[in-house]
C-alpha cells in the first residue's frame, strides 16, 4: 500500500544568534492510511518540530533545509477520491497525481492542505482557542476557509461537529466563549476543529499533557473512536512512551543531542555529571533524529537501541509492575514524625455578583507520617494535596484542625517555635527552574539554610556544601556555578541538597519530578530512595502521577476535592482499590494495557 505521509531525509534548521541550529537531521518516516504512528521523545528531541514541519507551521526562524514531505492525495488505496476531493476545492493549483510534495508548495497552496487534508490538534487546549471568539464561530471557520459550507450551513455543521467530538450540549457550547469551558471540553472543541474538513491525516501534538489523567484518557478514547469511524491516520506526538504504547500501531523513537540529562549509558551518575570542558564541545547540538521505529510490540519487547531500552525502563507506567517496591520503613512502630488531625483549610473566593463564596481546599483530613516512611498523597489538580503539604509545614495557616510534629502541637506555632520547625521539616518544589535564585551560585543555594541558622563558620559551611553535593551525586565543580548553567535534573539535585543541609527529619516533596524528563525522573526518584535508606528520612510525597508514586511510597492517600478518600499501603491500594475514583485513576495510567506483556 502506498503510504499516506512519507517523510524522507528531513532536515530542519533554526537561525539563531551565532549561527544555525539543526533541529532535525535526516528524519525518515511513513504513515499508512488509517494508521496510528506515535512519535516519542524527550524534550529537545525535535518531535514537535517534526509536527510543525509537516503542517508547514515552523516558527519564523525555522526552515526545512533538506528532504521531502509527501502527502498522498485521497485516502490511499482504501478511501478512493471521494473524501479527499474537498482538498482540491480550496486551491486547485495543488494538483499532483503521485501525491504532493509539501515542502515545494507555496504558502497559498499549503493553506489548502492545512485543515482540509491535515488536521492539527494542539498541545494546550487552554490557550489554543481565540479567547474573544465564540466556540461555534471558531469551528465554523475551519469549514468556511475551505469553502465547504456557507455562513448558515457552517453554523449548523459546527454544532454537529461539536457533538461528534463528544461535547455535551453542543448547541449551547457553540454560543459560548472558550473561558466558559473546562480544559477537557476545550480540547474536544479543538478536536472538532481538526476533524471539521474530514482530513486524511490528524496530527496530535501532546494532546493531553495539559489535562488531568482521567480526562486525558476519555479524550484519547474518544479520539480513537472518531478515527476508527473516519479512517483518518494519526500522527501522535508524545513524551509518554506509555501513551504511545496504548494508542499506536507503530512507535517512532526520537532523540535530541546527547545532553547531560540523557539517561543513556549504564551509569546514570556519570551521565548527570557537571559540564566539563569536553561536555561543552560534545554538546554542540546534533539535532533530533530517529533512533528506532517499528510496531509497538517489537519496540516494547525487542528494542535494539539502548536509548529506547532506557526510555522503556524509565517510563513509570510501563514498568510499574517491574519496579522494585521501596524497602519497608526502618522503625515502623515508633511514634510518627508528623501528624495532622481533622485539618481544614478554606479560601475566600473573590466576590461574584456580590456573593462571597468560600472554597474548602482541604476538608477534614487526618493522617500520620511515620519515621523513615514515605507517605504519598495523589490527586488531580485542585484536589488540595499541595495545600495539605503547606499546612503540614506551617507555611500556611489551617482554618481548623491540628498539626503535630514529633509529638508537639505546632498548629499555632509562631516566632521562634515556627523558625525551629524550619530546621526539621523541609520542602522540595516541583519546578527546579523556579525554586533556585538565578543570582545565587550553587554553593550559596545549598548553604542558605546554614546561614539562616548561623550553623558553623564560613569554611564549615563550604565544607558541608561540598559533602551535600556529593551525597546528591553531583561533582563539587558545580559549586561555583549558577542554576542557569545546570540541567533540570541537576537543579533538582541541588534543591535536594539544600533540603538536606540542616539534616531534617521530614522532607515534603511537592511534585518533585513532574517538571523533568522521564529518564531524569527515574534518577531523581532513585536518589530520594537512596537518601531515605541511608538516613531514615521521612517523606511526604505529593504527586498527580500514580505510576511515580508506586515506585517510592510505602502508603498512598488518594485525594479528591479536598477530601482524603482512602489511605492504604501501596500494594494493597493498587491491587484492590476500594473507591471508584481510585479505580478510575488507576485505569487512567497510560501503559496499563500493555504492562502485563512487558512485566512478564
Amino acid at each position: 500500500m502506498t503510504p499516506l505521509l512519507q517523510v524522507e531525509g528531513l532536515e530542519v534548521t533554526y537561525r539563531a544568534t551565532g549561527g544555525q541550529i539543526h533541529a532535525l537531521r535526516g528524519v525518515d518516516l511513513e504513515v499508512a492510511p488509517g494508521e496510528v504512528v506515535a512519535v516519542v521523545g524527550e524534550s529537545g528531541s525535535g518531535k514537535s518540530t517534526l509536527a510543525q514541519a509537516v503542517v508547514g507551521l515552523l516558527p519564523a526562524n525555522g526552515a526545512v533545509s533538506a528532504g521531502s514531505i509527501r502527502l498522498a492525495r485521497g485516502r490511499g488505496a482504501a478511501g478512493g477520491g471521494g473524501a479527499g476531493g474537498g482538498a482540491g476545492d480550496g486551491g486547485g493549483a495543488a494538483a499532483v497525481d503521485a501525491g504532493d510534495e509539501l515542502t515545494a508548495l507555496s504558502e497559498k497552496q499549503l493553506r489548502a492542505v492545512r485543515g482540509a487534508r491535515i488536521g492539527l490538534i494542539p498541545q494546550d487546549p487552554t490557550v489554543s482557542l481565540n479567547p474573544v471568539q465564540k466556540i461555534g464561530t471558531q469551528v465554523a471557520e475551519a469549514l468556511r476557509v475551505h469553502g465547504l459550507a456557507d455562513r448558515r450551513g457552517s453554523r449548523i455543521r459546527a454544532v454537529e461537529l461539536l457533538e461528534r467530538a463528544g461535547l455535551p450540549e453542543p448547541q449551547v457550547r457553540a454560543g459560548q466563549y472558550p473561558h466558559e469551558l473546562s480544559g477537557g471540553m476545550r480540547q474536544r472543541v479543538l478536536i472538532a476543529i481538526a476533524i471539521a474538513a474530514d482530513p486524511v491525516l490528524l496530527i496530535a501534538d501532546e494532546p493531553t499533557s495539559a489535562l488531568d489523567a482521567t480526562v486525558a484518557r476519555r479524550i484519547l478514547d474518544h479520539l480513537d473512536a472518531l478515527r476508527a469511524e473516519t479512517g483518518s491516520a494519526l500522527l501522535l506526538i508524545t513524551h509518554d512512551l506509555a501513551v504511545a504504547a496504548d494508542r499506536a500501531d507503530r512507535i517512532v523513537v526520537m532523540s535530541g543531542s546527547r545532553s547531560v540529562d540523557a539517561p543513556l549509558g549504564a551509569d546514570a551518575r556519570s551521565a548527570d555529571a557537571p559540564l566539563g570542558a569536553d561536555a561543552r564541545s560534545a554538546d554542540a547540538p546534533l539535532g533530533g533524529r530517529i533512533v528506532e521505529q517499528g510496531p509497538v510490540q517489537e519496540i516494547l519487547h525487542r528494542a535494539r537501541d539502548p536509548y529506547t531500552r532506557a526510555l522503556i525502563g524509565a517510563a513509570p507506567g510501563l514498568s510499574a509492575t517491574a519496579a522494585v517496591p521501596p524497602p519497608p520503613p526502618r522503625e515502623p512502630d515508633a511514634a510518627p514524625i508528623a501528624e495532622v488531625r481533622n485539618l481544614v483549610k478554606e479560601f475566600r473566593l473573590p466576590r461574584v455578583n456580590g456573593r462571597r463564596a468560600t472554597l474548602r481546599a482541604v476538608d477534614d483530613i487526618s493522617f500520620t507520617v511515620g519515621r523513615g516512611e514515605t507517605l504519598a498523597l495523589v490527586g488531580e489538580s485542585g484536589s488540595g494535596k499541595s495545600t495539605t503539604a503547606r499546612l503540614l509545614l506551617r507555611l500556611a495557616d489551617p482554618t481548623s484542625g491540628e498539626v503535630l510534629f514529633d509529638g508537639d502541637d505546632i498548629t499555632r506555632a509562631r516566632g521562634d517555635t515556627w523558625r525551629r520547625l524550619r530546621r526539621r521539616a523541609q520542602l522540595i518544589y516541583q519546578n527546579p527552574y523556579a525554586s533556585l535564585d538565578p543570582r545565587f551560585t550553587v554553593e550559596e543555594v545549598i548553604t542558605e539554610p546554614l546561614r539562616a541558622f548561623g550553623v558553623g563558620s564560613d569554611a564549615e559551611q563550604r565544607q558541608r556544601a561540598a559533602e551535600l553535593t556529593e551525597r546528591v551525586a553531583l561533582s563539587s565543580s558545580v559549586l561555583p556555578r549558577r542554576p542557569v548553567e545546570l540541567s533540570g535534573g541537576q537543579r533538582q539535585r541541588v534543591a535536594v541538597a539544600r533540603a538536606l543541609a540542616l539534616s531534617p527529619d521530614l522532607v515534603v516533596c511537592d511534585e518533585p519530578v513532574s517538571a523533568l524528563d522521564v529518564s531524569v525522573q527515574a534518577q531523581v526518584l532513585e536518589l530520594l530512595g537512596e537518601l531515605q535508606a541511608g538516613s531514615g528520612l521521612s517523606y511526604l510525597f505529593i504527586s498527580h502521577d500514580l505510576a511515580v508514586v508506586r515506585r517510592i511510597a510505602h502508603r498512598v492517600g488518594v485525594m479528591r476535592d479536598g477530601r482524603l478518600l482512602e489511605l492504604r499501603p501501596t500494594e494493597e491500594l493498587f491491587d484492590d482499590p476500594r473507591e471508584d475514583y481510585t479505580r478510575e485513576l488507576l485505569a487512567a495510567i497510560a501503559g496499563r494495557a500493555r504492562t502485563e506483556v512487558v512485566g512478564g
Partner: protein
Amino acid sequence: MTTDVLLPAEGTVPGAAVAVPVPATPRERLARLGRFLRGRPGLVVSIVFVALVLVAAFVPSVLAPGDPTLGVPADKLQAPGLGHVLGTDYLGRDVYTRVVHGASLSLQATVIAVAVALVVGGLIGLLAGFVGRWVDETLMRFVDVLLAIPAILLSLALITALGFGTVKVAIAVGIASVANFARVMRAETLRVRRSTYVEAARSVGTRWYVTLRRHVLPNAAGPVLVLAVLEFGLAILAVSSLSFLGYGAPPPAPEWGSLVAEGRNYLATAWWLCAMPGFAIAATVLSVNRISRALDGEWARFS
C-alpha cells in the same frame, strides 16, 4: 516539561540548554562584547555620542574652547560654514560653542530629575511590593493619581509653586516621573517576592530582611535600572521642553531648550539657530534610548 518547542522562553536551545557556555575569563567576556558591538553599529555610534555629551557636560572647554556668551556682532547670523561649524546667532555668538556648553545645564537637570524619580519612586514601589496589603493599596492609589495628571502639567504645577530655575525644573520633572518607577519597582518586587525561590528561602528559615537584601533587591533592580536609562531620555525631553517654555535658567546661560526658544524669532531667516540645539537634544535622546534597549535583554539574549 512536556513541550519541546525549539526556542524556549529562556532563549536557549535544546542541547545547548544544558551547556550554556560560560564566559569564564575576562578575555572571553571582552570577545563576546566585541562580537556584540560588531553587529550593532548604531549602538556603537550611540555610545560614542553619549560619551561626547558627557565630556561636553563636565569639561566643555575640551570640545569648545571659546566663550559661549561672547558675541562678535560683526559675525552675527552667519550660516554654518568653515568659520563657525554650526553658524552664529543674532549677537554673533558661536552656536557650536553654545550647544556644547548647554549640555552642562541640561544634563545636570536631567541627572537630578532621574535621581529624584529613582529614589522616591523606587522606595514607594519597594515598600508597596514588599509590605503589601493596605500599604500597597494606599501607595498605589497615590501613584494612580500621579498617573492621572499628565506629566508636563504636574511639572508645571510644581514649577508654579517652586518658582523658576534649572534645579527647580529638574525636581519638577523628577517628581512627575515618580509614578513610573514606583510601578516598575513594585511589579518587580512582587514578582520576586512571590517567586518560588523566595518562598524556598523563607521555608528554610531565612529572615525577612535577609530575604529582602539577598533575594529581592538584586533580582528586582535590573528592570528598574533599565527604566532609569530610558527615563533619562524622557527627562532630557521634559527638561528641554520646560526650558523652551522659559522656566529654566535665565538668559544668557545656554541651555538646549532655551537655545531653541531664542532661535525661534529668526526661524524664517536663520534656521540653524533652532535646528542645531534641537539636533543635539534629539541625538542624545535617541542614543540613550538605543543604549537602554541594548541593556534591556538584548545583551542577555546574545550568546
